[in-house]
């Protein structure tokens, strides 16, 4: 394949475009469905027309978001089959099982209960309608669970055995896949960040109504629910983010090193609060990693190991196979050159297996399969020409991570302020500076959310499956021109649909909610 690099690059760009577009809609669906559930519960308990109108208003925005986002994830599956066919085959039922469960749940739960949510106001009992609203919210989160389990497996493959006859990974421990700590933290991080995004979205839109001096009662009531959901989401995001940091340090230390622009690690390692990376820095050279850096002493050790003195390896440490024990002794670990050698042994074993299969030599096949199994954990390293190829793009990973953290810190403050204003100091919510800050938070929360995914997915490069398969092995034998064509087609279609969503949502916002309940207590 002459144009392998080009095919890989365009396929990655296309996948990134599709996934990031899909992720514009998903977190809002995850969080706003919960906010609507709470609003309808208040209506169910109070039978207040105000809460009914509020619920219906946000439900309409949920519907717009859902309609525009629906099926955008299917494109990712198209891309797996066309652009990433080697990967699709190689993962076998590990990916198939969670996605099949997700498809069934998404179809039956969401499509059934969303219909009741929108069409059932005067057709079913209030209790049944409320149950349908909550089941829609739960269904959305369960759908996300299975997708995130599949994603977590790519970051930390467990619960399977590779079968060279089928050329597939065969799941041998379903619960190891489902209950992987990486999957659990990833699920809570994604769902809770969806709550944060939705809390900020509802707060920001409500602030916009207050700026326009419209629907004041609706805005204040909405902010109360949204800020509570957003604050709970923020706590959940912080907790799961902490768990994810420990996971990354344990199973993807190279990603953590790239997230921090860390080349030479140490015990009591400082964390970079913000810095400007040296663009000329390469692994192994003597140049400084940063042109400018503000760091917090021991911060990274605390984050990654929950210990002030914990050792956090840098890029050079990982490549050279160097670590420091809790006792302070420097020890050798498996270097990347050794991993590449092990990967090459695994590939040679696969080559012998293939030759034996063609000759029908069962004994040689068995022996080759055993040799392959012994080095399979490093199978993907055999595709790398040098250890430095295992280093992800440091600049993108570092800046994406720090944008996420800084934006997250800002949103944390905004939500704390909103919560305080909503439940203690009502006059705060009417201050112009607060209103403008709340509105400005809407794009910030989306940037934060997308930056999180960029960190997770760019930081794991070059692996499509950590240690087992790099992107250059996963991509299909297709032309770069065909991927380029569909990339631009997607870009055009996605832009058109995004414009349509913004138009419809803006039109709906201008209409606002029913106003005849404004004086109702």
């Amino acid at each position: 394949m002459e144009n392998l690099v080009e095919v890989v690059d365009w396929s990655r760009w296309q996948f990134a475009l599709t996934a990031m577009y899909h992720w514009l809609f998903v977190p809002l669906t995850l969080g706003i469905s919960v906010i609507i559930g709470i609003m309808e519960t208040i209506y169910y308990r109070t039978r207040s027309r105000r809460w009914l109108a509020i619920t219906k208003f946000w439900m309409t925005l949920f519907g717009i978001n859902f309609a525009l986002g629906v099926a955008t994830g299917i494109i990712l599956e198209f891309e797996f089959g066309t652009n990433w066919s080697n990967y699709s085959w190689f993962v076998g039922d590990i990916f198939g099982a969670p996605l099949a469960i997700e498809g069934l749940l998404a179809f039956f739960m969401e499509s059934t209960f969303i219909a009741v949510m929108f069409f059932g106001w005067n057709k079913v009992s209030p209790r049944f309608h409320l149950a349908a609203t909550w089941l829609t919210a739960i269904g959305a989160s369960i759908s996300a669970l299975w997708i995130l389990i599949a994603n977590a497996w790519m970051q930390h493959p467990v619960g399977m055995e590779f079968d060279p006859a089928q050329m597939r990974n065969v799941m041998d421990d379903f619960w190891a896949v489902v209950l992987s700590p990486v999957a659990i933290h990833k699920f809570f991080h994604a769902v809770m960040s969806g709550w944060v995004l939705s809390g900020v979205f509802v707060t920001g839109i409500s602030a916009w109504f207050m700026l326009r001096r419209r629907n004041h009662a609706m805005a204040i009531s909405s902010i109360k629910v949204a800020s509570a959901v957003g604050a709970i989401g923020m706590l959940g995001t912080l907790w799961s983010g902490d768990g994810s940091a420990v996971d990354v340090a344990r199973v993807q230390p190279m990603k953590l090193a790239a997230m921090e622009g860390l080349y030479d690690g140490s015990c009591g390692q400082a964390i970079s609060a913000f810095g400007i990376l040296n663009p000329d820095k390469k692994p192994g050279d003597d140049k400084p990693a940063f042109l400018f850096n503000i760091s917090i002493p021991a911060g990274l050790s605390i984050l990654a190991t929950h210990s002030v003195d914990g050792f956090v390896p840098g890029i050079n440490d990982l490549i050279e196979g160097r670590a420091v024990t809790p006792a302070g002794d420097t020890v050798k670990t498996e270097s990347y050159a050794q991993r590449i050698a092990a990967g090459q042994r695994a590939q040679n074993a696969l080559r012998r297996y293939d030759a034996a299969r063609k000759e029908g030599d069962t004994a040689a096949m068995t022996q080759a399969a055993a040799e392959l199994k012994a080095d399979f954990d490093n199978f993907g390293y055999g595709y790398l020409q040098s250890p430095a190829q295992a280093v992800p793009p440091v600049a993108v990973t570092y800046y994406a991570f720090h944008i996420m953290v800084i934006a997250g810190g800002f949103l944390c403050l905004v939500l704390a302020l909103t919560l305080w204003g909503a439940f203690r100091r009502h006059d705060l919510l009417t201050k112009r500076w607060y209103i403008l800050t709340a509105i400005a938070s809407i794009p910030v929360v989306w940037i934060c959310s997308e930056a999180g995914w960029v960190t997770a997915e760019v930081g794991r490069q070059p692996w499509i499956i950590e240690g087992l398969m790099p992107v250059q092995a996963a991509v299909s034998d297709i032309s770069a021109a065909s991927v380029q064509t569909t990339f631009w087609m997607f870009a055009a279609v996605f832009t058109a649909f995004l414009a349509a969503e913004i138009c419809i949502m803006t039109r709906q916002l201008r209409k606002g909610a029913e106003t005849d309940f404004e004086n109702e207590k």
Partner: protein
Amino acid sequence: MAKQSDISDKKRPRNLIRRVADLYIDGFRSMTVGRSLWAIILIKLAILFLVFRLFFFPDLLSRDYPTDEDRAAAVRGQLIDRGSQPDRQPTDNQHSTP
């Protein structure tokens, strides 16, 4: 008594189906913003499945290889071809630009 029960049992499923059908029919009839959304959904699904899926995104392995065994052999061949050469020595510890 038994007869009455039989009647109500027979009626209930029919009523339920009718109610579900009414839910959707009345719902679609009374839509406002939903009309635009459904139009967008249908256009989107048509583009995705009738254009992208049909003409640009075939499942390559299913299209080109009739059996699972053939597909496995094709993937095995590609993963071997793109991998290290049999006579290649393990790389040293030098750093090089990716």
